[in-house]
């Protein structure tokens, strides 16, 4: 007959089965955020008919909010179109992208997202950049916070009626050039090469070279810009005047070690932050001496994103330590929903002494070198221009710099696609941006 032990076993069996059911229920509860934005889910459209959290800037000014008129909810975007790729859009037909997507669950629960961006600075930069194509990113090198990020051309994320147009536009307004645009760096790589050389003891600030305007490696020649011969120059002057001759030699002496340093600076790998970033490319190790020379001047098949350059030059500005760039400083909500992001150190790349030395050389670039058009009376700005040759057309104009040089508070990277010489096209824009960014920092 049925023993009590059998009854007990039946009970245990049921406990196990029901436990499995509870497990399944919990699993679906855990996946609920992903299920909510599945296209087959009719509740997907519900999310557009209800209030939504705001996205704010660093001074708590509202960048994005949902307004309500009766039953109609509209998502309103109060920022220039160059910020749209980062903020993203929230549309029943075209989906959810950017920060709107990354923080979709929190925004749906009406939690607010507080970014590190400065709305006024962003507007200023947008008006300044005008009709150029390219990217600008402004960070605080001490913390890694992104104060402004712009990618031109942008698009109006509040009005996607012309979505098809934007999608097929040859200059790709949906493309986030700051995070994902990969360009050859040209001479903006030189501060990093210089830092590597100083760390490895290959050169010192006072080391001298004879620069005759060109240098040959097994029959192939690398020229200075405009074939200019700079004569006997120190390392500082080599950076200030952007001597290809000197840096081609430095890269040859560093070889694989130089690539390692570039990797330590964050080039060649994706940067982990709120949005996805491109990795760019570091050349493979098997290069001829001409090839290494090309690396030293930022050509070869090097590819970097403006964000990577901002983070790397940030190392120079921040006493040799690489900080993680981030966009969101805080999310509010109920106690267990809150989130606060703090500055995060990724690693130390170079010594403080090396960073100071490179900074000095970059200041020289602004006071008497190729970056003269970024100079401001009474302010020490450290900067480096870049003019990157590329197969698609005229050179990209780069500028990367920070100020005040001694205790940097802002760092600016400007890329004008096919803009020509960095010192001519990018440096003057950066000058204005640096001044505005420093002024904005003062007002708290």
């Amino acid at each position, binding site marked *: 007959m049925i023993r009590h032990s059998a*009854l007990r076993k*039946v009970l245990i069996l049921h406990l196990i089965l*029901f436990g499995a059911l509870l497990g399944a*229920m919990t699993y*679906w509860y855990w996946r609920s955020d992903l299920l909510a934005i599945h296209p*087959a889910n*009719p*509740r997907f459209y519900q999310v557009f008919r209800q209030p939504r959290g705001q996205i704010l800037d660093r001074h708590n000014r509202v960048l994005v909010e949902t307004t309500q008129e009766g039953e109609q909810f509209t998502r309103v975007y109060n920022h220039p179109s160059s910020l749209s790729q980062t903020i993203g859009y929230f549309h029943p037909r075209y989906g959810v992208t950017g920060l709107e997507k990354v923080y979709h669950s929190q925004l749906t629960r009406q939690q607010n997202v507080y970014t590190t961006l400065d709305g006024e600075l962003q507007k200023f930069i947008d008006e300044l950049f005008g009709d150029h194509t390219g990217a600008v990113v402004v960070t605080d090198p001490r913390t890694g916070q992104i104060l402004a990020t712009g990618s031109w051309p942008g698009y109006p994320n509040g009005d996607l009626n012309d979505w098809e147009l934007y999608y097929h536009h040859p200059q790709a307004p949906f493309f986030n050039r700051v995070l994902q645009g990969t360009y050859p760096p040209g001479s903006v790589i030189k501060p990093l090469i210089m830092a590597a050389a100083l760390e490895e003891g290959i050169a010192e600030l006072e080391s001298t070279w004879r620069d005759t305007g060109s240098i040959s490696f097994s029959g192939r020649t690398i020229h200075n810009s405009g074939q200019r011969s700079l004569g006997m120059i120190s390392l500082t002057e080599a950076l200030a005047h952007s001597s290809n001759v000197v840096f081609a030699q430095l890269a040859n002496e560093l070889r694989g070690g130089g690539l390692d340093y570039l990797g330590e600076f964050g080039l060649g790998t994706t940067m982990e932050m709120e949005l996805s970033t491109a990795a760019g490319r570091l050349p493979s190790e098997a290069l001829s001496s001409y090839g290494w020379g090309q690396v030293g001047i930022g050509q070869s098949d090097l590819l970097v994103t403006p964000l990577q350059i901002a983070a790397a030059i940030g190392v120079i500005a921040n006493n040799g330590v690489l900080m993680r760039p981030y966009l969101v400083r805080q999310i509010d909500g109920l106690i267990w929903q809150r989130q606060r992001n703090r500055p995060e150190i990724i690693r130390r790349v170079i010594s403080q002494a090396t960073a100071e030395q490179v900074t000095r050389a970059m200041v020289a670039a602004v006071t008497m070198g190729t970056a003269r058009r970024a100079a401001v009376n009474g302010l020490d700005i450290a900067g480096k221009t870049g003019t990157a040759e590329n197969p698609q057309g005229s050179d990209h104009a780069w500028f990367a710099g920070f100020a005040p040089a001694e205790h940097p508070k802002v760092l600016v990277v400007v890329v004008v696609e096919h803009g020509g010489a960095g010192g001519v096209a990018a440096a003057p824009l950066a000058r204005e941006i640096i001044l505005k960014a420093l002024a904005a920092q003062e007002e708290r």
Partner: protein
Amino acid sequence: MKNGLRRDFVLRDLRLWFDLAVWWALLFFWFKLTITAPPWWQPTTLFILLLILAVWNWWRGVSPYGLLIVAFLASLNWFLLYRINPTYADAQWRGWLLSGIAFLVSLHIDWSKAVHKHFFGSVGLAILIITGIFGKEIGGARAWLAVGPIQFQPVEFYRVFFLLFVSRFLFDSHRQLAHRGSGSFWDIWGPLLIVLGGAFFLLAFQRDLGPALLFFLVFMTLMLAVSFSWVRLAGFVGLAAGGGLTGWFVFAHFRQRLAVWLNPWQYADTYGYQLLQGIFAFAAGGFIGRGISQGTAETVPQVHTDLTIVLIGEELGLLGAAMILAMYLCLIFWGLKIAGRQEGYLRILSLGISVMWGTQVFLVIGGVMRVIPLTGMTLPFLSYGTSSLITNMWLLGTLSSLERER
């Protein structure tokens, strides 16, 4: 029964109905008060109500808690049906009255009276045969019988006869099963093969595969509980595999259900629509739910029958759904306790009822949550359907009746 005993029972019945009336009133006011309240009120206040009820009964020394659990489930069901569509609630109300009568009748039957298994077996088979011949096909399975204006599912009633037959059979042959002793093969296994084999065949013929699986599992559990052997377990597993394979070849909708279970996303617009919509609705509830009538579970097909748990999930949250699971577990535990106090044939019967409820809940919720393929069955007490309610109340009456006789 002596007159004195009968009067005692009547008094106990009256107290029981008083309890139920109070409970119903509480739940009614709860529904009215919380329907516009913030969602987290609902599962928490429901839980508090249950606590009050448990404490009150414990204090009075009464524990007919099987009936009270069912009252909770059934009345919650009524409210949810009302929220889906008031006409369902109306029909369910009538179903309640009928099933209340069924409960009372079953309560007063003397279940220990010996009735030969052949009686149950043949009546059961007859029900299935009639359904097979005269039945209407609804939703892929020919499971419905229409008598005048009334439409019902005879397979639900068949359950009762199934349980009675199986319990009787296992009791009669338990010695032979244990010792593999005397009695010719035909004597022992004959009735079983005819009745159960016939039942499975007929169910398959009517394409009502869910109940077929349920009966198979219940029979397996009962037989193994009576006399366990690894050989027998292997035999059952083999039978199940064989049945599964046959089903796969013969039945298109069996293949469909299996395919959807393995990858519902691929069939999101076609076969998988029901399962996925159910999962979307359940997940949309969050931990405390959206609140009664705040969800959009109307978009889920069959939400008033097969997928009621999904409505509970969306509107009362994971918390509400877990509470329902706990309620069913309590019901099964109650049934097992009663089984422990019975002897012989009645022990098998009460175990069978509990196992049938437990297995059914697992098959239904497991299917909806994608643990196993959907089986097209409904939750006992928690779905729209008079036949199912009558049957389950009848079974509840059986257990309650057994509980009283110590």
